[in-house]
C-alpha cells in the first residue's frame, strides 16, 4: 500500500492506497501542510476485488470508521474518495470539539460561521471571502471548542462543485487546483488549495461572532433567526452533538446564546459578499 500522512488543523491522517496516483495528487495539493508522526485516523483506498484493481479499477473507501453501504468510486476519482474518507473519520470519530457542518472565515480575530445544506453555497462563499480580505478557516466543518466557545480551523482542500468551479478559477487565478473530476456522485468536482495564510495559521482559533444560513438562488434578503430555530437547525448540522452528551448540549446552548444568527438569500457571489460585509459592519 502507498502511504501519505497529513495534518489538517487539529487532526492528522494516514492515507493508504493500492494505487499511487491519488496519493501523488494529494501530496501535490497538501504540499504546504505539516506531516505528522502520529495520526488520529487511517483511511484506506482499496480495490473492490483483485480484478477491479487493474480492469475498470474501482475503489472502496475504508478506514477506522466506515459506512456499511458506501458505494465504491472509479479509481480515477480516488482523490475524492480519500477526501470523503477523511470527512467520514471526522464526522464519526472526532470528540475533541463539537463539529458543525459549516464553513468559517476570520477577520480581526473574530469568526464568521456559515451553515446550510449542500448547494447553499457555504463552501464557495467561504472560498470567495478567503481571497477577499478574510482568513479562510474551513469549507466543510467548523469545530467549536466546548470549553472556550472558540472556532478551531479545519482548512482542508476546498471542494468546488459544478458552476462554482469555473467561477472560482476566474476569481482565484493564482490558486492551485486539483484535477477536474467529472460525473462524480455529486456532479463535477474540483479541489482548490486554500490560500497560503489559511494553511500557515491553521492552529489559530477565533471567537465566533456571527452565524449565517446562506441560501443561493433567491433574491437578496436578510432575516433574523430566533435562537430556538438556530438551536434546532444546528443540532441537525452537527455530526457529534449527541455523542458529546452534556458537554455538547452546553456548547450548543452557549453558542446559540452568544452568536447572533441571520438567514441570507443571494443570487451571486458578489451579492453575497456585499450582504456579508454589511452585516459584519452593523454588528461591529
Amino acid at each position: 500500500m502507498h502511504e501519505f500522512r497529513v495534518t489538517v488543523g487539529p487532526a492528522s491522517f494516514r492515507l493508504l492506497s493500492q494505487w499511487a496516483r491519488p496519493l501523488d495528487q494529494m501530496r501535490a495539493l497538501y504540499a504546504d501542510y505539516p506531516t505528522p508522526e502520529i495520526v488520529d485516523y487511517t483511511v484506506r483506498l482499496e480495490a473492490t476485488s483483485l480484478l477491479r484493481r487493474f480492469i475498470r479499477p474501482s475503489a472502496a473507501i475504508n478506514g477506522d470508521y466506515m459506512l456499511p453501504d458506501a458505494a465504491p468510486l472509479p479509481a480515477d476519482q480516488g482523490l475524492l474518495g480519500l477526501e470523503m474518507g477523511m470527512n467520514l473519520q471526522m464526522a464519526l470519530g472526532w470528540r475533541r470539539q463539537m463539529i458543525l457542518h459549516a464553513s468559517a472565515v476570520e477577520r480581526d480575530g473574530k469568526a464568521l460561521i456559515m451553515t446550510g445544506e449542500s448547494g447553499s453555497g457555504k463552501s464557495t462563499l467561504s472560498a470567495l471571502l478567503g481571497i477577499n480580505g478574510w482568513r479562510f478557516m474551513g469549507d466543510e466543518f467548523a469545530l467549536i471548542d466546548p470549553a472556550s466557545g472558540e472556532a478551531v480551523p479545519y482548512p482542508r482542500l476546498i471542494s468546488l462543485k459544478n458552476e462554482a468551479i469555473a467561477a472560482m478559477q476566474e476569481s482565484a487565478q493564482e490558486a492551485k487546483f486539483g484535477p477536474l473530476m467529472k460525473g462524480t456522485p455529486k456532479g463535477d468536482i474540483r479541489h482548490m488549495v486554500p490560500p497560503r495564510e489559511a494553511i500557515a495559521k491553521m492552529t489559530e482559533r477565533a471567537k465566533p461572532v456571527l452565524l449565517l444560513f446562506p441560501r443561493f438562488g433567491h433574491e437578496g434578503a436578510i432575516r433574523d433567526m430566533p435562537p430556538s430555530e438556530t438551536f434546532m437547525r444546528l443540532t441537525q448540522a452537527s455530526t457529534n452533538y449527541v455523542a458529546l452528551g452534556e458537554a455538547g448540549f452546553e456548547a450548543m446552548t452557549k453558542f446559540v446564546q452568544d452568536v447572533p444568527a441571520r438567514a441570507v438569500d443571494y443570487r451571486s457571489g458578489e451579492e453575497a459578499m456585499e450582504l456579508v460585509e454589511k452585516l459584519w459592519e452593523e454588528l461591529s
Partner: protein
Amino acid sequence: MKDGRLLVTALRDPASTAALDADGWIALLTMARAEQLIGTLAFRLEGQPMPDGIAAIFEDARTNADYQRKTALWEADAARRALASYQGKVVQMKGTAYVAEDLQAGIGRSIGDLDIMVEEDDLREVEKLLLAAGWEWVKEDEYDDAYYRDHMHELPPLIHKTRDRMIDVHHTILPKTAKPTPDAKAMLGNGIIGSDGLAVFTPADMVCHSAAHLFADGDLAGGLRNLWDIYCLLMEFSRGSDSFHAELQSRAQHHQLEPAVSRAIRLTGHLYGDSKAPPNITDRFYIRRLTARNGCGQQTRKFTRFAFYVRSHLLRMPPMMLAKHLWTKWRKG
C-alpha cells in the same frame, strides 16, 4: 508483531506499550478500532505513559464509550417500557448486560444492538408490543423471515423508526439447526431480575452463552472482543466465588456446551491470561484466525478466515440444508 497479537499483548500487559514507537502506537490503535476494542483499550491503558497525540485519541474513545454505555442503557429501558404489560421475564444479553451489571467486561465496551431474550411461546406477544412501540422489521422478505422463524434462535432484527437502533429478540441460545441444544428454558428461568425490572443470566450461564456465541456459532469475526468479554467474566466471577469453576463446569455440561466453554477457558488463558503451556493444534488454528489483522486495519489470512466461514455454516445446518439455503440465496442475488 505484525498481527493481532500486538493488540492482545497491550490488553494483557498494559506496561508493555512503553516499548512502542509512533508507528507501533498507530498500528495498535488501528487494530483496536477494527476489532471494536478501542474503548476497552483506552480504559485499560489509562495512566500509562504515552505520546500526547495518542492520549488525545484514547480520550475521544473514552468519551465515546461513555456515550455508548448511556445509549445502551437507555435503549434497554425503552424496551422495558414497551414491554411493561408483558408478564414474563426479559433478559438483557451481551454488552448491555455487562454495563447494566457494572461488570469489568462492560468497561469501554462498544455496544451496537440491544439483545434480549424471552420465552419462545411469548414471541408473538413481545413482537406485537415492540411493533406498537415504534420498532419495525429491518427487511421485509418472506424467505428470510420464514428462515429466521423456522430455524434461528432469534426473531428477524427490528429497528426503532425514530431512534434508529436495532433490537434482537432471542428465544434460545443457538440456531435450532445447530447440534448442541443448550437448555434455554433453564437459563431464562434462572435469570436474575434486577432493580430495573430487567433480568440477566446467572454468572455461569452468562459465560456459557458468551462461549456458545463465540465458538458454536459464527465465523469468529470480531472474536478478540468477545474473547476479552469472556476473559473478564471468568476473572471477575472466579474472584467473587470459590465454587464458580465447579458451577461453570456443571452448567456447561448441562447445556451441552462443554467443548465451547473449555475452548474459551483455554484461549483466554493463552491470549489474555498467563497460561504457559503451548496451545494445542486446533487452538493454534483458532489463534491464527482471531489475530488475523494487520496494522493498517485490514483482515489477513484469507484462507484461515474462509475455513472458519465454512465452519460457521456447517455448525448452523446439515450439508443438504446448507446447499438448499445457498441455492435460494444465490438465485435471489
